[in-house]
């Protein structure tokens, strides 16, 4: 169930082993993850499926260095993230990880381009902001503020912002959750292109099973455990998805 050594790009970006996560919610212990092992191959496109409460967001947060597991091990290119301190996790996020959220989380006081520059200003070898916007098809909207854009456009700016640093890993939490089908597909196409053209290891969490067809690997989570794993022999194009 873990890393499939026979795949083309065998190198691992991230490797998780027997990860558990227990939250203390008031007087109740919530077991969000109960021993999960997942590998992310370099350049891979992973979809994490599962109902709410299945632990997929926790898994994504641990992958992205926003949270640390209760037990188990997380290695990023051999570096142990479970032992990293606050500063090391910040540097990890800053250099390696791009995030895309369900509710975009753009800075309303900055234009599209400036939102991207927010990241390029603190990165070592970023894409030019304009190029990042070009990739998501928003080159002509670069001087618009978030309040002047549609939800789909805002999410594409968020993707441009996430990829501008040339991340090793692109993590997306329900990126189409707040969008209708047409704009959702535009967003997925952008993610597909980034994965293909720039080789960013991509992981998307969603409860929408239709999206799973564009991944090369699909992991289903239920009750904090991996319930099913699937490798797609051929990836469908985002434009063909229907939901």
């Amino acid at each position, binding site marked *: 169930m873990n890393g499939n050594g026979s795949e083309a790009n065998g190198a691992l970006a991230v490797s998780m082993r027997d990860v558990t996560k227990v939250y203390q919610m008031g007087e109740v212990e919530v077991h969000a993850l109960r021993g999960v092992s997942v590998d992310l191959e370099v350049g891979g496109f992973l979809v994490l499926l599962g109902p709410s409460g299945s632990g997929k*967001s926790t898994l994504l*947060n641990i992958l*992205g260095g*926003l*949270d640390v597991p209760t037990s188990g091990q997380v290695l990023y290119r051999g570096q142990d993230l479970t032992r990293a301190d606050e*500063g090391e996790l*910040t*540097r*990890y*996020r*800053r*250099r390696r*990880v791009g*995030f895309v*959220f369900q*509710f975009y*989380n*753009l*800075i*309303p*006081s*900055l*234009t599209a381009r*400036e*939102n991207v*520059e*927010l*990241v390029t*200003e*603190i990165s070592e070898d970023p894409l030019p902001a304009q190029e990042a916007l070009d990739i998501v098809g928003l080159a002509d909207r670069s001087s618009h*503020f*978030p*309040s*002047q854009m549609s939800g789909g456009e805002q999410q594409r700016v968020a993707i441009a*912002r996430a990829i501008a*640093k040339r991340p090793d890993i692109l993590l997306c939490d329900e990126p189409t959750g707040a969008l209708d089908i047409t704009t959702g597909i535009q967003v997925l196409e952008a993610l597909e292109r980034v994965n293909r053209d720039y080789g960013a290891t991509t992981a998307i969490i969603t409860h929408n099973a239709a999206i799973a067809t564009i991944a090369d690997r699909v992991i289903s989570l239920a009750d904090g455990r991996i319930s099913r794993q699937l490798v797609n022999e051929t990836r469908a194009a985002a434009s063909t998805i229907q939901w």
Partner: protein
Amino acid sequence: MIPALDRKLLRDLWRVRSMGLAIAVVVASGIALLVASLICFDSLETTRDRYYARNEFGDVFANAKRVPRWVAASLDELPGVVRADTRVVAGVTLDVPGTSEPVNGRLISLPDSGRPVLNGVTLRSGRWPDPGRAEEAIVNERFAQGHGLELGDQVFAVINGRRQRLEIVGTALSPEYVYAIAGGDLLPDPTRFGVFWMARRHLATAFDMEGGFNDISLSLAEGAAPEPAIAELDRLLESYGGLGAIPRAQQISHWYLQNELTGLRGMALLMPMIFLGIAAFLLNVVLRRMVAVQREQIAVLKAIGYSNLRLGLHFTQWAVVVSVLGGVLGIALGALMSAGMLSLYMEYFRFPDLIMRWSWGHILGALLACGAASVLGAAAAVKSVVRLPPAEAMRPAAPDTFRVSLLERLGLKRWLTQPLRMVLRNLARRPARAAMSVIGIAFSASIMVLASAAMDSFEELMQLQFNVVQRQDVTVTFFEPEGRAAYYELASVPGVVEVEPLNGASARLRNGNRNRQVGIQALQPDAKLQRVVGADYQPVRFDRTGLILSRKLADVLGVAPGDTLRVEALQGTRPERDMVVSATVDDLMGVSAYMEPEALRRFLSDSATMSGAALGIDPAARDSVYAALKGMPVVAGVALQHAMLENFETFVAENMNNTMAINLLFAMVIAFGVIYNTARISLSERSRELASMRVMGFTRAEIGVVLFGELAILTAAAIPVGLGLGYSMLAGMLAAYETELFRMPLVTEPATFAWASAAVVGAMGLSAAVVRHKLNRLDLVEVLKTRE
């Protein structure tokens, strides 16, 4: 059973308790000032009024040279007069054992039988003097305390060159000397001015007043105006060397007390208004934020049937609870403060007993003021609650609209990093709120400036008076105008290095129906010690013929240079003449008219040309000069420059430092209240942005720029505004305090501005530190999950 909505209220209060508390402390500070000032005002006024009534403090006062006793009967006939008392009063030089310096004393006669009726003396210890014994006297309590005099101790009064022994048999207080200050002083000095009461018979003998008197007090019927009595009295005393009667309002002790009460009333109005205004602003900001955060909750409440009125009330209640909490805290604090303030007042104003007074009406007023501030603060937020349509509220709020800020449009854009642009645009998006924050912080700086600049001005007045205007070491005044002989006598005292004759004549200046009794001073054009100095700190040049007036005096009389005044001398042959006002001078102490010495002598047609002298002395010979002055029969009073300076410095050390500390504290409360709330609101509004940035890999320090950059800009903008505001408030205050006794120059030391700025920056640092703690605990995952 508490209704559910009220439970929500309680939990909301608890949830934002730190902001609520910060606002409550601002309210408490304002109310504490209000209550303390009102308690002091009520207590002092009641104490004074009761004291005046019980001891029958006079309504009109007059001095003359010598009035025969039979005139006394006609005093009762003056318009409105209920009672008239006559006394013998004499200024003397005192020799107090253990003190080398000559001390100014005033001897006041006690009736030969019975006790004084007007200006009743309250015995504090010991007994009344035995009318049969010439040496027995009672002394004012503060002087006895200042010199550590006990019953049975002796001091000596120099009367006509003879040392007259005075034995202290009692200590006393008098309504005439609640504020016991020697003429010409700015501050009372308990060691430099002693009042003694003794049997009339002996005092009259010593001063050639047998069968006569030289001091008159009148009490008037309730509601009677003093002017008719004063006019008649002046006419009556004209042939006896009358020096012009004054109403109670101009009696010096009363004047100072009244001035202080007026100041207290001003403080009771102005300062609390500033504090409550700022509290209303802060309530407004916090409540509006609360409504924004609770949009969906409000919509649900409306959807299930809560009325606009009930919801509006719900949010108003939050503000009312916060400010009433502050109000109650402030009332308690104010009561405590008033005790401290009153004990300080009792140091300077002496009453037999203090009647603590507070009125429930004032307390109720304070609470109503809190209520008004909270309703004012809640109004805008409540309006937005009422206007929120339930369905609209269930949808997430649209992203805030922003624009490129003015600064960036001016071409600074490329110098700004994205976090800095965020800061600028956040500020530009709510200019009114930014402006209010700036004004709030500015007020705290201005209070600081006001507090310490008033001190700067007072110090400048002192330094100007003692180093530029009066450069002598000793000022001597004579009983009667003297001729050249007195000059040579002073000049021949070993240790006296310089003698400058002073000549002043008491006169009444009249312009139509406006008139003032003042001293006309003759000053040598080349005077080195006692000079007339204008606002430019340069000595004034003298015109041979004209009259130069203090600007304040010219204002009071309504004249300008070129106008003519009627001048009536109140001494000698009492000549009268019209004189032209040639100039006005911005002098700072007292009001005077000045003339060239020869012109004054011709006007008075008097050969005696000295009413006193300014002396420069050799510091090494101080004690022998003092001893010589004590023995001179012509000397009525001696003012010592160094004693006035030392007294001033003590006053500053005892009072001003306390006042400064309290003002600093209050200014910090405002600054902290405004900045902390601004920071907390920013944190609440931007937590999502800040969390996003943290997720993207920004460090805590980097996101701190967004949050604290805004505070820094607001504070930086507020400081110059506050310094300017403080300066104008100071100018206004000094203008309001401009009196005929003194005018304070408008000066501010750079250190004052530096201190005020530092205090505001300190408050910002403190707020930032507290908010930083919250920022560090920002839950990244949680913030991102929830929709705003």
